[in-house]
């Protein structure tokens, strides 16, 4: 099968894809690293053509010492953590619910998945204007109906609101993965546990939850990757105000609003480091579920 000839032919045929992928990844990464060591303020006349001034680690030091840095890391972690907890807890409950035989199962399942198809910008706008608006939003009307003062969701409870919006988008994804996992559970195991004297909650704890552990791991890993980079939801709702400035939003502000490419690039490198720290942590904590 794998003769010398077929191996070199295989390498040759894979080469275009590998080169494209490497270029796709390496060029932006190298440019980011390159700019992060340079003073690059386009509005002040800096340009690649004129040559950029080498500033060493000055951009890194400045990004780190900025008063927005640690709060942005904190906001990022709170959003990621909050969304993960909500999507997994409710995802499991919804998955169990959807696994029950019921009338109109197919339609209901499709409808549950629907939020995932709505673009982040659109869903954030819908939440901002139709639900959370303090005068016209449905929630405001609900509060008024009970005689309470409407909550100014996006300014008074900005982080929880944002977590709510993002969770709404990602809940279908978690539900879908967990539902398929629940469907693969051998029903004889549940019956055996029932015969062994385990009531409903213990069956959930000792049989269903361990069975789901691998699916939960996958949900956590995939969602973390995407949640670290959420942007549209923040841009549309709070614009980074009221403590919702995440690391990726901070980088956006440095590069586009302050027009400081060097500083933004340094932030980008920090973001890569943060993502890798999280990835290593997650793999150590939950990754063992993926073995065997």
């Amino acid at each position: 099968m794998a003769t010398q000839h077929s191996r070199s032919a295989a390498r040759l045929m894979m080469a275009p894809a590998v080169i494209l992928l490497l270029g796709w990844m390496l060029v932006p990464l190298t440019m980011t690293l390159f700019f992060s060591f340079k003073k690059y303020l386009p509005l002040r006349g800096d340009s690649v053509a004129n040559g950029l001034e080498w500033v060493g680690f000055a951009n890194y030091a400045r990004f780190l010492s900025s008063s927005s840095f640690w709060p942005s890391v904190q906001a990022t972690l709170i959003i990621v953590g909050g969304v993960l907890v909500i999507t997994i807890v409710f995802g499991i409950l919804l998955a169990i619910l959807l696994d029950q035989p019921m009338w109109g199962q197919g339609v209901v399942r499709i409808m549950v998945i629907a939020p995932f198809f709505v673009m982040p910008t659109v869903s954030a706008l819908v939440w901002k204007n139709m639900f959370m608006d303090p005068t016209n939003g449905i929630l405001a009307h609900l509060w008024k109906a009970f005689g309470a003062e409407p909550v100014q969701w996006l300014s008074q409870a900005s982080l929880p609101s944002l977590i709510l919006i993002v969770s709404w988008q990602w809940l279908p994804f978690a539900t879908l993965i967990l539902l398929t996992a629940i469907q693969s559970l051998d029903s004889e195991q549940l019956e055996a546990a029932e015969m062994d004297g385990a009531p409903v909650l213990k069956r959930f704890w000792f049989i269903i939850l361990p069975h789901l552990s691998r699916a939960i791991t996958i949900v956590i890993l995939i969602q973390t990757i995407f949640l670290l980079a959420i942007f549209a939801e923040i841009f549309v709702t709070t614009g980074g105000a009221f403590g919702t400035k995440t690391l990726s939003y901070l980088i956006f502000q440095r590069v586009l609003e302050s027009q400081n490419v060097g500083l933004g690039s340094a932030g980008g490198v920090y973001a890569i480091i943060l993502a890798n720290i999280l990835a290593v942590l997650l793999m150590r904590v939950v990754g063992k579920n993926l073995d065997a």
Partner: protein
Amino acid sequence: MGRIVLDQVSKSFGDVEVIPPLDLTIDDGEFTVFVGPSGCGKSTLLRLIAGLEDTTSGHIRIDGEDATNVPPAKRGLAMVFQSYALYPHMSVRKNIAFPMRMAKMSQEEQDKRIEAAAKALNLTDYLDRRPGQLSGGQRQRVAIGRAIVREPSAFLFDEPLSNLDAALRVGMRMEISELHKKLDTTMIYVTHDQVEAMTMADKIVVLQAGVIEQVGTPLELYRAPRNVFVAGFIGSPKMNLIEGAEAAKHDAHTIGIRPEHIDVSTTEGLWQGTVGVAEHLGSDTFIHIHGVPGCEPMTVRTDGEFGVKHGDTVYLTPNLAHLHRFDAEGLRLE
């Protein structure tokens, strides 16, 4: 203790009645086998006794108490499933301990029972492995171990050997029979394999389409099948059933004669036929014979050295002492 009485128990799924009302008594300490073709309702009946399905009508009494609406865990029965249903994320030890843990038994008692069960089932070296690391036979033993430690009043087996290879199946058959002798507990065993039923049972219950066709000891069923279905189902190879003129000679609609009750000769006999396929098992040879009126083909058993080939003419003589006669409804005539 473990006397189980079914009183007019029936089960329907929607409009489909899979088990019409039936009565059955299983005595304490008895090894009862439910046997029948696929889809005859034997597993459903077992699940009704286990409490995994609700009865549509009728009563189930365990040791004299009405258990019809008692949840499965409270019936004091243990079940071994066809797929073994071991908990894949728990070690063998934890699997076996699970029912005791649910019953909040003391750790000492748990350890003692696990040790005893592991010793009895040859699992001592495997207690810390996961089910995924065990062979089929070992998984089967873990499932039995999980049932034993509860010290149930009866064991329920749902086709426990059908996932094992032939050699292992014979071995496990012996082990389960020995276990029954040792524990002396009621066991109900569901299978579609009449060999398992014949070799293991104290009492066989033959089911077809949810109806009990006959209840009796293995030899009773072999000697005096109550109807054509039981006659054809019990015994291997199957009984030869002959209809038409030959049956009329014995005042019956159908007559049956087992392959082992027919003498074969190359020179003379009552019936004449030609040899089709001969199955040589070494100790015995089963010959399929074509051309006997009313029965196509007729199977006979001869000793292993009987030398005939395809196309030879042979003569058959039934042993009339072992002839079974049935009427037009298929019921046995005495």
